[in-house]
């Protein structure tokens, strides 16, 4: 299993250094997965256990389908000004929805 994952990362990171690079990419991959699981538990624990169970299953499925997530995260965090603008607009809207909508 792990060898397979290593192969995938090896394929994806041909131009970005090997060995330690892949090691750190794997670390960040595990960190992302841990964050997604812990975030789901944190967000849904307050609701109720049925929602928690379903939400956890959905998130696990999502993780299985999106692995490796690291490269997607990296793609979303480039230096482009347009992407930052999009996220700023999104955040502004989100803040107003949260505070004025009273979620």
């Amino acid at each position, binding site marked *: 299993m792990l060898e397979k994952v290593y192969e995938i990362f090896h394929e994806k990171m041909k131009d*970005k*250094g090997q060995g*330690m*690079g892949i*090691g*750190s*990419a794997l*670390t*960040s991959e595990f*960190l*992302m997965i*841990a*964050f997604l699981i*812990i*975030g789901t*538990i*944190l967000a849904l624990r307050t609701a109720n256990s049925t929602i928690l169970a379903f939400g956890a299953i959905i998130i696990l499925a999502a993780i299985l389908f999106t692995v490796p997530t*690291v490269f997607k*995260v*990296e793609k979303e*965090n*480039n*230096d482009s*000004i347009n992407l*930052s603008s999009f*996220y*700023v607009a*999104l*955040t*502004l809207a989100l*803040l*107003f929805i*949260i*505070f*004025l909508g*009273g979620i």
Partner: protein
Amino acid sequence: MLNNSTLIPLMVVLPLIMAILVNFLHQKDKSVKFISIVSLIVFVIVPVVTLYGVHLFSGHLRTGSFPEISKMLIPEVYMGIVYSYGTLQKILMLVLTIITGFSVLTVINKKMISGVYVAMIFISLASTSAIMLADDIFNFFVFTEFLVVAQAALVIAVQETKSFKAAFKYMIFGTISGASILLGIALLLGSYGLLNITDLSNAIAAGGQLNSIGLSAVALLTLGWLYESGLFPFHIIKSNMYENAKPEISALLQVQSKFVLVAMAIILFRVFSGYALLKSVMLGFAIFTVVIGSVMALQQIELRKLLSYVAVSQAGLVAVGLGLGTSFGIAAGIFHAVNDVLSMAILFFVASFVYDKFKTTNLDQLREGLHIAPLVGFVMLLATLAISGVPPFNSYQSEWRLIQAATQAGLPELGILVILLSVATFVAIIKAFYMIFMRPGPEVEVNTEVRGTMTKAIIVILIIACLGIGLFPNVVYDPIYNFVLSLGV
């Protein structure tokens, strides 16, 4: 507590005066050098000798109650700016002035001295101290704008295309955040008629439930907070700034943004005390920043970029402590800010040394550095241990308190996340350490003229400070905890 301390405004006024003075002395390098060293000594001394208290500019102490809500009659409005100076401000001011001093000394030592450059450093110092001291919400806004321009100017001074781009992005989004902070202030002024933070907090607490105007103000000010501290949507912009400044200036910039984070979060907590949703939202953004920052740091193969993302993710960790909202959590977050600023400054000074010595910070081109600079390598290893929370050092104390506070606040999952993040930070920086100092390979080109005595002295002093705080944490932590308790948020 309420003595009118005259020395307090000197912390803001002196740097501004000195900035104007060294700005006039452009190209007279010797006098700039002399004046900067003398004024730096004064800047460090002033916070030490100042008494705790408040300073009232052209004002008088309010007696009795605050004015009625929504009634903007002139005689009832309490005009005049108030600066307050307590134990927390003293600790933060000391750390800020000392690291500013180290940055300026490095700049002088590198013969890059220029009047305008030092002036910009002094203006950013003055703005940060004003943000920490001000008890007036508009004064706070004015100095955030100053800080944005001064920091952008420090990055522009590098004169590379990438730094121009970073500064332009920083200023574009600075306009948005500045406008949103001012709009939030305007909404508060319109509905309560007050600018003084203490009065405003009393008025809002007496008004009960926030109405929709107040809630809009919360949203706008939160956006401003996210920008000033470089959290989630602005983390790329902030890390771009750190990356494209000279490393010794990045050491200063990260101190400023972390302290502004703490100061503005305290202002928000005081103004909207009792509004729990604000803290949850802060916590959410903080967690997201921490994770994204670490993940991005692990991917980098350029030392300065790596350290920038680590700095951003550590700022998120500070915000996690503040977002927990209990007094224990807030104190732990502020304590982590102080600790983290010290160890992060060591790493940035090491990056500065590496940049001068090897003429590059690209990790792929560096190897076998331990023969050339054994002391720097050793201190970088210690700083790596310090920043990832290994026991004898200071971050261990604060991260341990953060985990404890998370558990006490009923969120033990956060404790797990904090542990994972310190592991990730350790992996990211130890990778850089290995590649610079340990990796075998052919010799790299070395600039023999650079001896870096000043940088070595600075990093040794800072690592000793880290060790000292780690061994005697209560010297720093207890005053912070008492201050947070006295805030009553």
